[in-house]
């Protein structure tokens, strides 16, 4: 049984059009999944149903064997954390320390333990020197890192990034990606919703959503070879991969193709 299982998931806000339609997914522990899709393809809705913020009309979500319902939502949320797009709107605490503590406070973690975990995880996202800082004095990237620390402190092992880099400057974005890579190496399951195909290339598997349906869900290297998937979903491949795909399977281009792939994945 997979770590995250989604079966026949259907969701609609107004019962007329389905934002999610019959979504079936299986995600393994420790995998890095990138979710791509045009605006309104249901990416964010999928994320919200996964943490139980929205209740699907049909279907079932189970995480680590727990089925999402009113009874287990609390338990499931311990395992899964979500970093939202706007760094400001998820910063609950008055200081960095308070914000990292917020989730643990809700879980009734004793104060001594909280203090230990706060320094440990603040260190991990390189925010230890900012524990007493107020959000107004932090950059967007720093706030997103605080959000990550808050989730890690709750001992969650799945983190969803819901376009978490889209409001950051290029430097902070790259930095955040670096932290996500370390999280992946530490064995966390990562679901990264993004508009940026270069970011998606870092994932193990890519899920392409189109009009609320799973359009494709394949290994990164495989899916990148199928240009039609992306054009159908109004997405664009990086130029280097476009070029690699355009070169025929001829043996003499093999080396160039490999170089282009390497180049694209390095980003």
């Amino acid at each position, binding site marked *: 049984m997979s770590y995250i299982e989604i079966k026949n998931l259907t969701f609609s806000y107004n019962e007329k059009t389905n934002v999610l339609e019959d979504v079936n997914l299986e995600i393994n522990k420790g995998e890095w999944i990138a979710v791509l899709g045009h605006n309104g393809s249901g990416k964010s809705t999928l994320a919200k149903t996964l943490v139980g913020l929205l209740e699907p009309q049909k279907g079932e979500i189970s995480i680590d064997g727990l089925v999402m319902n009113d009874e287990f939502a609390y338990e499931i949320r311990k395992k899964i*954390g979500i970093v939202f797009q706007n760094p400001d709107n998820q910063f*609950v605490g008055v200081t960095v320390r308070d914000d990292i503590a917020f989730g643990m406070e809700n879980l009734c973690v004793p104060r001594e333990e909280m203090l230990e975990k706060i320094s440990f995880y603040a260190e991990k996202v390189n925010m230890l020197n900012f524990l007493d800082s107020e959000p107004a004095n932090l950059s967007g990237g720093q706030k997103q890192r605080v959000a990550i620390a808050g989730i890690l402190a709750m001992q969650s092992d799945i983190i969803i990034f819901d376009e978490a880099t889209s409001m950051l400057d290029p430097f902070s974005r790259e930095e955040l990606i670096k932290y996500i890579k370390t999280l992946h190496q530490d064995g966390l399951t990562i679901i990264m919703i993004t508009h940026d195909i270069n970011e998606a290339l870092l994932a193990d598997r890519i899920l392409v959503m189109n009009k609320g349906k799973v359009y494709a869900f394949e290994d990164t290297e495989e899916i990148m070879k199928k240009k039609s998937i992306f054009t159908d979903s109004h997405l664009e491949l990086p130029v280097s991969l476009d070029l690699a795909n355009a070169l025929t399977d001829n043996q003499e281009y093999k080396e160039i193709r490999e170089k282009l792939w390497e180049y694209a994945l390095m980003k």
Partner: protein
Amino acid sequence: MKSIIIGQYIPGKGLFYRLDPRTKIIAVLLIMISVFLLETIEQLLIGLATAIVLLLIGKISILKVIKGLKPIMILLIFTFIFQIILNREGETIVSQQMYFTGYTLLLLILAFIVWRILNKLVKYRFTLFFLFAAGVFLILSYVDFGPKIAEPFTFNIYRAGLEMSFFVVVRLLIIITLSTVLTLTTKPTDLTQGLEKLMHPMKKIGFDSESFALIISISLRYIPTIFDEANKIMLAQASRGADFSEGKLKDKLRQVISLLVPMFIIAFMRSEELANAMESRNFVPGEKRTRINELYFSHRDIIATIFSFLILALAIVLKVM
């Protein structure tokens, strides 16, 4: 927008900084009650002296407290003036013949204009105001020549009026000084937490002090963010031709609406996202939570509380005697 200071808190290390917020709130309340029990001028002066001694002990700059008094200064001046003019009990202390002639009127207008101009140029506005008031008094008293506009009248100050105005002003001064000490030395978050703990017993009558404290602390946290946003919207509207500083009242009102409507909409959107973020981190309203910021009563707090109870006891004894 990094310099917004919420509340009056100024970081420091004096005695009052080390007290538990609960102690400070209780002490301020007790001393306030004591101040209202005082009856004679001597007692009030001692009270004022005590307040100043407290400031000195806490190493709080008196200048900062005076700054904190500024918004209330006008209220103080008006109570003072009204008490003096309207209270007509007791013996007369000052009796001054006053005249109102054409020259008086001319001089008054001149004095007013000079005051307004200087007001824009000089820093010490309150001193200036008092000089202006004194000038008006002198003009009314001594300019007795020129065409008569009104009959001469006598301006009397009565003992009770003077005493009452003194009472009101000194009482307010003490109370404001005390509350300024509280807000200067306590972080807004600590203050809310102190209030939360003190109001905890009210849970029995259905008042959820924890949610209340959370609401306050989130509001405090979002003030700079929303301020920032207001600035952005103002710039955006200004670039579309809105003018927030000029125009008639009606135009100004319309401009303000162009600021308020987007701000409300954005605030609602924010709050929804915030609610999602909080819920995804397992927040359940009304559920038991542990706290990262704990309050601790130390021996210092016990001494301070006993001290303020003693002040109250003293005030009660004085009142009864």
